[in-house]
């Protein structure tokens, strides 16, 4: 075999951004090994620099002429670039908020960063994976690193519980996913490349075999676990509550973004024959997620649990874009993920800051915070209101775009459910804001009464402050100045060949959405 020739065929430049992350990861791992515990002074900044370098590499890949790398194993088209960017960015914003949190708990920072970077790496590869083996390996890289991160506070029973539950449920859903993938392999006559699978199955006849439907359902189970869609969501509240908060922040944004990237690529590429079925299944998941996530969030007393259920609901909103399957639908997903990144991470930054200062995350303990820490109150209020979709914050425009795309594609039922549940969600977000702002001094909670003096000079606090301000500014301004983000989201969809062909097919095939929608309405 001609290896020189093969090397040229690999087109290895497509994974340059991931290469930068791997390099950073190794530098941190080895550097920490050599320097010892004092390395925590520089490792986070190296990690952030590496992620920023990776983002830069992604930026220069935007107009790449040949996006297919590794003989079809990896696809660096515009869609994967955007999602890889979201994942890398979420990790880059997570790191500054983790520094103080990890230091205060006495665990080692460098290893935390290494595992976080591995999770990022898995997510980024997953967003571009175009072949079954690659998909599974990157999925497992993401999952296993997530389990490790979840159990990072190893002396805390809650953290142990969360990690074990996450591991068990994750293993179960991985197994289901793998079963579905193996069915695909069998149905296509031994192909692992997604495009080849689709063309082989189509070549066998127009009637989809029952095995394809089963494969579809099994694959969706794996994906739905990653994006925490009801009824595959039960792990979320337990894991969110027991994990270190920065990990939760990453899981709720980076991991979810990877799941959505996988969903788009796998479903659109490999299952064109059963498009009606997967739209139907996702409609059901979306409705359940929006309703259950937002309704149950009402009853929560712990901030992290509330955010867990709220993230389930938010995932339901994003699914609307996936279901309608139009240009605008996909673009609105990308746009919402970008916006969600800032507002959700901003919210978590505030939660981290509060729990570091008071040692609690009970919602009732937030009462009267305005009197003691206006900046934190402002930041949390802006992020929560944006999550609730109050104009003119970024979340409003994200939701508007999603619902608009849904409405235009005729998914009226879904959009109505989305509107109603987003009104419900406003209630529990506002409740927290009200708790913080509208309380007189004597109604202050104990935690706020004993609130320590605000000191940003403690080690690790400065990055936390920077990431808080960054997220709040981005959340407030991304709505008003949203045009660049809109353009980015739109270009990423219009420049992606696979989505363009699927959109054309959707329009030819008539209105599958209305069909699925009508069934939901019955």
């Amino acid at each position: 075999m001609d290896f020189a020739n093969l090397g040229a065929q690999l087109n290895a430049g497509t994974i340059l951004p991931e290469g930068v992350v791997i390099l950073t990861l190794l530098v941190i791992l080895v550097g920490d090994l050599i320097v010892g515990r004092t390395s925590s002074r520089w490792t986070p900044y190296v990690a952030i620099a590496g992620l920023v370098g990776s983002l830069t590499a992604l930026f220069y890949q935007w107009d790449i002429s040949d996006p297919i790398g590794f003989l079809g194993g990896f696809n660096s088209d515009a869609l994967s670039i955007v999602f890889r960017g979201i994942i890398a960015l979420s990790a880059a914003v997570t790191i500054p908020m983790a520094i103080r949190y990890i230091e205060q708990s006495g665990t080692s920072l460098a290893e935390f960063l290494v595992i976080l970077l591995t999770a990022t790496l898995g997510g980024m590869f997953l967003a571009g994976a175009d072949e079954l083996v690659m998909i599974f390996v990157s999925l497992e890289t993401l999952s296993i690193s997530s389990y490790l991160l979840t159990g990072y506070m190893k002396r805390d029973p809650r953290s142990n519980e969360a990690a074990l539950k996450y591991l068990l449920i994750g293993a179960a859903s991985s197994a289901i996913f793998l079963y579905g993938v193996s069915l695909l392999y069998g149905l296509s006559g031994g192909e692992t490349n997604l495009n080849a699978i689709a063309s082989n199955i189509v070549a066998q006849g127009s009637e989809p075999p029952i095995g394809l439907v089963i494969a579809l359902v099994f694959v969706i189970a794996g994906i739905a676990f990653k994006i925490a869609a009801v009824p595959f969501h039960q792990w979320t509240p337990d894991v969110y509550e027991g994990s270190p908060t920065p990990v939760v922040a990453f899981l709720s944004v980076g991991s979810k973004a990877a799941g959505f990237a996988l969903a788009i690529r796998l479903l659109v590429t490999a299952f064109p024959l059963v498009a009606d079925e997967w739209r139907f299944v996702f409609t059901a998941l979306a409705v359940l997620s929006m309703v259950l996530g937002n309704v149950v969030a009402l009853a929560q007393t712990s901030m992290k649990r509330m955010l867990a259920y709220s993230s389930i609901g938010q995932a339901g909103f994003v699914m609307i874009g996936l279901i309608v399957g139009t240009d605008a639908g996909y673009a609105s997903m990308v746009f919402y993920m970008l916006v969600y990144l800032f507002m959700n991470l901003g919210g978590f930054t505030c939660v981290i800051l509060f729990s570091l200062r008071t040692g609690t995350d009970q919602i009732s303990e937030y009462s009267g915070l305005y009197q003691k820490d206006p900046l934190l109150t402002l930041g949390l209020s802006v992020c929560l209101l944006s999550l609730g979709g109050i104009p003119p914050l970024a979340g409003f425009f994200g939701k508007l775009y999603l619902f608009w795309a849904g409405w235009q594609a005729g998914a009226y039922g879904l959009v109505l459910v989305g509107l109603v549940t987003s009104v419900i969600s406003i209630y529990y977000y506002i409740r927290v804001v009200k708790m913080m702002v509208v309380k007189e001094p004597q109604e202050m909670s104990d935690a706020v009464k004993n609130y320590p003096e605000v000191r940003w000079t403690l080690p690790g606090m400065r990055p936390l402050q920077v990431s808080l301000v960054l997220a709040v500014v981005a959340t407030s301004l991304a709505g008003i100045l949203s045009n660049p983000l809109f353009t980015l989201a739109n270009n990423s969809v219009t420049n992606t060949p696979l989505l363009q062909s699927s959109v054309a097919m959707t329009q030819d095939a008539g209105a599958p959405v209305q069909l699925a929608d009508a069934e939901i309405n019955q």
Partner: protein
Amino acid sequence: MMEPIYQYAWLIPVLPLLGAAIIGIGLLLFGDKTYQYRKSISGFLVFLVGATMVLSFALLWSQVQGHAPYTALSEWATAGDFHLKMGYTVDHLTAMMLVVVTTVAFLVMVYTDGYMSHDPGYVRFYSYLSLFSSSMLGLVVSPNMVQIYIFWELVGMCSYLLVGFWYERKAAAAACQKAFVTNRVGDFGMLLGILALYALTQTFEFGEMGDRLQTLVQSGSLSAALASLCAILIFLGPVAKSAQFPLHVWLPDAMEGPTPISALIHAATMVAAGVFLVARIFPVFEGLPVAMNVIAWTGAFTAFLGASIAITQNDIKKGLAYSTMSQLGYMMMALGVGSFGGGLFHLMTHAYFKAMLFLGSGSVIHGMEAVVGHDPVLAQDMRLMGGLRKYMPVTAATFLIGTLAISGIPPFAGFWSKDEILGSAFAVNPALWVIGWLTAGITAFYMFRMYFSTFEGEFRGNDAEIRQQLKNENLQKLGLAFGPGAMNSQELTLEAEHEAEAHDADHGAHSEFPHESPLVMIAPLMVLAVPSVLIGLVGTPFANYFEEFIHPTGEAMPTLAEFDWTEFVLMAGSSVAIAVVGIVLAYLMYIKRKIDPAAIARKIQPLYQLSLNKWYIDEIYHTVFVQGTLRLAKQVLSADIKFVDGIVNLTGLATMVSGEGLKYFETGRAQFYALIIFAAVLGIAITSSVI
């Protein structure tokens, strides 16, 4: 030559916003230290609003001179073929609203300096006021539905902040929530309507939206019923914001906010935003008779409802609030019967005289507080007032002017606008006219009842018996309003003790009689009295300059109807006559005491109770919506607990892990989760292979 003022028209909303932002950031950073510089801060903000007022007058003048409407747009967001534009537009309607909003806002801000001078939240209040002015002005200059919706929500938020300004008062905190929730209901419908209309017409611009909708309806590709449904959905927004039945419940409660807010937001500007919006998208409604009828009847019913409740109110601000609701009903009715100019004319006149009435009531409350202490239950109750004309002559005179104006006595402003509305209602549907006419009589009656019991007769403020009676009533009301169980008796007594303490503490500050308010408060009253008297003259039926100036967007100027003296005398005569009847009745009851109102109340006990309890609408809503929702939520929750916990306990496959550290795990939930996942996979697979 006029171009520069149009190019800089964007400064109108931006200037107050800038002020609010600067002060807000200062407040956030420096906290209470800003209080030292409060006078310069308020001066700065008043100056900014004054500057926008000057600019608005310049724009109005230019529009009156016949300058073409001006619109500036810039691309804001683009997604494929979807373009969202932002900008501002100045036309006749905008120019008029700008002047109304800025003048009232300016005067209210001046007045606030006196009213709030001792409040620790002085600076915060000013920055909210400035923020509100900015949002309201932004709403007025919005060129499309999306932008209007954004500012619509912003004014709603400001109203929430301002109603709850004294958030330590329980009633205020509850009121701001009620306002917020009620408005969300309306806004939700409005958002749906906007989206639906966009789906139908592919545009957010007002004019195009109406034109395309009419074309669609006429060409038959869109059923009129669906178009009307969309229009009515949009109308839900104005229903909530302008306090129309059935979403009016928040407005009276919103009077818990400081009085300048009641004057600015809940009488003159924000509540008029609903009327303004209907006028703005008048082209949409115009061609849909069903929607127009809904608007007209909603307005008429609200007018009557508000007036009938206002008769029995004893709280001076609540009375004015219901009267506002009733007058807004008139405006809606006018728009519903197609009298575009009439509705907006009344909006303008009402803005001035109602702002003056509210500021006057604020002045009265300010005076009363010197006697009875800072207790809204006592300071705002008319049963404790009386004879105030002696102590507060300027307030009394301006209040009388406002009362005459609202009662529709010529030549005061209210007469002309109300007459125009009644005239056009008669032309469309005599039944509407009858309602409006009756309401006019009731209006005159309750307004004079208010005036007489406040300013005439003997001063009753030091009557301990009445005070005690009022307090007891208040306690009973609290117990009722929160329902049994929500507040236990212990809390009630606590409340009582708390109030008793407040009472004692205030005792030192008591003076025997109320005093006239400082100049900074009565000056705005006097200024507002001028338009209250004179502004009506721009819209007399003989020479209706107003109607010439204001006409629906994109429509040709209406040719003025031939003026008919007999018709005018007949219409105006009948409405003046019933107003005079109302006034005389009030005079006999409350000055001469020839008729005993209590006896009448006893005779028509059910009707009296109906009015006193606001037609029991609050109670109905409480039972149906609040308790219903609560019950539903509880049932869902308990079902969930029973179902999930039940199964968890039953499965109990808790033998996998041992050890104290994994105590949590003993519920065995992990297996249960896995079971759910597999069951879900099974269920989904079966469902999707069956379909």
